[in-house]
Each structure stands twice: as structure tokens, then as C-alpha cells.
């Protein structure tokens, strides 16, 4: 791991879908790489590359169960498949195919679910995955990743190509608040410390890492020193880092763009109760369905903001 945090609270210049498209094109240099999509290539920035590489890229149409099953077969045949659709369809719509043909059968496949959580915005409740990480976490030995920004996306995605088993990656498609400098290097399964502190640890993933950093700045001004961990690999969770953060600060707040049931909060709580029980609070969707609206409205509605993190930090410190 080798990364520099450079958080300025500004949106990145490149949309995540463009970075995704460029990264897929790079991964395509490996002749064993195969890209599958379910009629959403133009939505995720891969259509141009796919059109130019008809033997490496296949549009399976709107058929997600077929997408997952085909990826499994391609893996068994010795290739390295990556399959994309929107998060709800990459998880709930093809769960048994992912579980059985990929997971149980031990096929090495990368599944991508775009429009993570509230980033599905105007597509509304039917398209808003608050449970995709929970579903993938429940599959034995699966790797589950919630991408923080473009520097992480372009570094981590290619690493998954030669990793064993089922890998699920969720990401937004638009510009996100950048957290890392370009060229950052991460290790899958190891949390990235983005800010040190001693009073409380905020463990976040995805778009909530930026919210955690905003919250930490507000808290700092009030004399509260928050440690911020980017737990982009939600499974396998970096238990060592969780335990160390708990021992160092004595209080934990998790923050995720996902239901608190089955996601990052659940994963961290699991580590804490078994090892170092300390007071803990969870920022995330509180067992609700999604709905339509702009992302900032949805973040406010579901409490996925730095303000709510600040509140929860104060509440958890009071419980110490």
C-alpha cells in the first residue's frame, strides 16, 4: 500500500464511468480478459472499447441471470471474466446464479454493480441497491469492495483479475469527491488509514469516506480527534485494523451508503463483539427502501452525511 490522501472536498474531474471504461480497456490487454455486460455498456463507459473488441466483449442483453452464469462458464474454461450491470441487477436479480455457478463452484469472476446505493438517484427505489453488499457478504469466501474514488478504482480493479474466487465491486457512475492522489496503491483486504486520531474511529467505505473526512474536520475544530479508516474491502474485513482502531480510540462509528443490516456496520460490529467490545454507532440506511430524487436529497433523507456522522461521533463518545 502506498497512497497519499488529498481531500479538498471537490468533485473529481473524471466521472467514475469514464475511469471504469479506461480501466477495462487496460485490463483488455490481457488476452484472457473477457467483458460481459447486460445492455448497460453505454451507461458505464465501455461501449466504445467493447465495439472495437468484439471477441473480448459481449453484450448479453437484458439478461442478468444469463450474464452471471456465462461468466462462471467462461471462468471454468480458463478465461478471466468481468461482468457488469447496475447493482440491484448484479445482486438480487441473479443471486442464485452468482451464489451457485460462481461462488459454490469456485469460479474466478469479477462482478460489478454500478449505481451503488443513493447514487442510483433518479432511477429511483427499484434501482437503488441498499442490500447488495449484504447479499454478497453472505456468499462464502466472496470479496466485497465499495470503491472510494477514481484513484482507487483504477488501482484496485486490475488487481482483482488474478485473484481467486468471486469478487463483487460496487461503484457510482458520476464524479465523486476525490480522496486520494492519482497513482495511489492499495491492498485488497487491508483498510487504508486516511486520517489519524485518538478520540474516536470513523470506519467508512465508498462515498462515505469523503463524508467521514468532512466530519473529522468539523470535529477537529471542536477539539475531537477522529481517526478515519477507509474500509473499502468490506469482506474479508480487516479485523486487525478494526481492533487496533477500537483499542486506540475506544469508540467506533461506521458509515456506509447501504442498509446498516448486513453491510459495513454489521461486519465491524461482528469483529468488535468478538474481540474488543467498545461503544459503536452506525451511519447508514436504517432498514428502508430507496426512492427517487437527486443524490444530495437522498443523502440527507437517509442520513448519509457528515452532519449525521458528527452527531453519532458525539453520541458514541458520550457512551465511552
Amino acid at each position, binding site marked *: 500500500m502506498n497512497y497519499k490522501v488529498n481531500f479538498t472536498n471537490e468533485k473529481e474531474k473524471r466521472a467514475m464511468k469514464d475511469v471504469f471504461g479506461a480501466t477495462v480497456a487496460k485490463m483488455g490487454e490481457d488476452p484472457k480478459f473477457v467483458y460481459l455486460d447486460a445492455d448497460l455498456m453505454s451507461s458505464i463507459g465501455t461501449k466504445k472499447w467493447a465495439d472495437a473488441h468484439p471477441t473480448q466483449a459481449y453484450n448479453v442483453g437484458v439478461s442478468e441471470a444469463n450474464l452471471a452464469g456465462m461468466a462462471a462458464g467462461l471462468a471454468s474454461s480458463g478465461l478471466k471474466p468481468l461482468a457488469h450491470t447496475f447493482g440491484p441487477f448484479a445482486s438480487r436479480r441473479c443471486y442464485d446464479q452468482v451464489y451457485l455457478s460462481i461462488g459454490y463452484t469456485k469460479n474466478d469472476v469479477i462482478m460489478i454493480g454500478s449505481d451503488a446505493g443513493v447514487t442510483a438517484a433518479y432511477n429511483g427505489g427499484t434501482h437503488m441497491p441498499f442490500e447488495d453488499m449484504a447479499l454478497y457478504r453472505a456468499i462464502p469466501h466472496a470479496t466485497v469492495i465499495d470503491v472510494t474514488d477514481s484513484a482507487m478504482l483504477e488501482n484496485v480493479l486490475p488487481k482483482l483479475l488474478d485473484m481467486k474466487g468471486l469478487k463483487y465491486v460496487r461503484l457510482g457512475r458520476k464524479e465523486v469527491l476525490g480522496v486520494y492522489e492519482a497513482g495511489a496503491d492499495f491492498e485488497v483486504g487491508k483498510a487504508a488509514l486516511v486520517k489519524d486520531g485518538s478520540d474516536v474511529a470513523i470506519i467508512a467505505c465508498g462515498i462515505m469516506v469523503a463524508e467521514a473526512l468532512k466530519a473529522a474536520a468539523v470535529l477537529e475544530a471542536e477539539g475531537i480527534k477522529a481517526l478515519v479508516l477507509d474500509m473499502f474491502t468490506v469482506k474479508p474485513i480487516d479485523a486487525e485494523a478494526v481492533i487496533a482502531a477500537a483499542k486506540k480510540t475506544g469508540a467506533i462509528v461506521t458509515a456506509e451508503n447501504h442498509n446498516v443490516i448486513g453491510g459495513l456496520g454489521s461486519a465491524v460490529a461482528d469483529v468488535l463483539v468478538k474481540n474488543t467490545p467498545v461503544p459503536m454507532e452506525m451511519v447508514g440506511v436504517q432498514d428502508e427502501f430507496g426512492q427517487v*430524487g437527486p443524490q444530495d436529497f437522498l443523502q440527507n433523507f437517509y442520513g448519509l452525511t457528515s452532519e449525521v456522522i458528527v452527531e453519532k461521533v458525539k453520541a458514541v463518545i458520550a457512551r465511552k
Partner: protein
Amino acid sequence: MDPKLSKQIKTFATQVRIETMKEFKVRGFGHVGGALSIADTLAVLYEAVMKYDPKNPNWEGRDKLVCSKGHAGPTLYSILALKGFFPMDWLNTLNIPGTHLPSHCDKNQTPGIDMTTGSLGQGVSTSIGLCLGDTIQGRDCYTYLIVGDGELNEGQVWEGAQFAGHHKMDHLIAFCDYNKKQLDGYTADILDQRDIGAKFAAFGWDTQDINGNDADAVYEAIIKAKATPGKPHMIVLNTIKGAGVKAVEEMSANHHIVVSAELADQALADLEKLWAEQKG
């Protein structure tokens, strides 16, 4: 076809396009292509075919409609508003926080929407359930189903097709909006559907192939379907994605588009001119 009825439905279809384009104008973007291609069929159904009560949208004896291509919600919303299911000014709220009109059809949000859709393919099974439920409970009504041609990629469509064919569900009348395009491009380039009618026929369905942007043809096909007992019905609608708005028809990628004020204003001017002529 009775000329008076024909005129009435066509005028209504234009009005529906006007209100739908206004919805998109206010929001500035949306699934315009697939909303416009299905406008004539939905207009025929609500103007001249279906029985329903806007004051009692959950009336058990009503005909049901499942728009399985749920992203065509905005067309249905303009019809439901024009028919009095809810106030016209709701049409200004498409997709805004707290709206009753989300981008995809939602049974719990919008009076008159009979089923939540948005995950393609699922409406086929839910429409079969609605139709079977009416039969089991002795209600004399029809269920109408709208699917996209791209949506036919979903295996669930064919799972449902088998059941409805096997059970001879003749009160299920389905339409496939064969606008030749899906999200990433032409349906024939992504997964060639070949002969859609023949495929449903192989599953035991009664099928017709018509011009789906011709309201008269749609109306007559429904009458014909109702007169053909013992099989579920698939009416393949040959349509144009974006039908009725020239600029959208001519765009190569017109699934989900930005709707500029210029585009909307030009479309509305053209449609209003047509509407005035039709009203005569």
C-alpha cells in the same frame, strides 16, 4: 373503425404526448424514446378499451394494466392525470423529492398504477398473477401487459409465456413495443429477436403484428384479440422509438436523453398544432 372514435383516440394520443413532453421539459431529462413509442397503445387502452374508475382506482372489477417496461411511467402518468386519477399539476413533479411520480411505475406511489415495475421482465409474471387472480375470483376483466423488445431478453418473460400459454389465459392481452432499440443500441445487433410473434405462437399464444403507432390498428387488434378465445394474446407493435417527436425519432441513441428547452418547445409547438388540427 368508427371515424368518430378514431378521431377521438388520435386526438387523445396527441394530448398524451403533449403532457408527457411537458413532464420531461420540467425535469430536463428522462426515458423519452420508449415513453413516446408506446403512447398510442396506452392512449387507446385508456380512452376506448379499459374499464376503470378514477375515483376508485382500486376497484376490484377494473381492467388491470402492467407496464413492465416501467421506465415508460411518464406516459402513463399523463394519461392517469388526464383521466382524473390525480391533479394535473402532479405532472410537474416527475422525479423530484417526495413526488408521487417516480421514473419507474410504483403501485404504492401513484393512484391508477396497478403494479410496481422497473426491473425488466418482472411485469410479465405479475400480470399473469393479476389475471389469474381475477379468474380465480370470478371477476370478468382483462389484464393488459406492456413489454419492451429489449425486455424480451429476460428469461422471466419466457417463463411467464409458458405458463400463460399452458393455462390458455385469454384474458391476458400483451403488447410488445417493438421499437427495434434497447439501451445500448439496436435490438437486432445485441440479441436478434427474429420473429417475436412466432416465438409467442410457439408458446401457445394468439399473435398479431401491427403498426403500433397507428391508434386505429391498435384498437382493432384489441377487438380481434378479445374475439379469439382460448389463448393469451401478444400484439407485436411495430413502432418508432421516440414516435411523434421528430428530433427524438432522429436521434441514434434516444433511450435516456437530456431534454433541452429548445427540443421540448419545438416538440410542443408541433404537437399542439397537430392537436388543434385533430380537434378540428
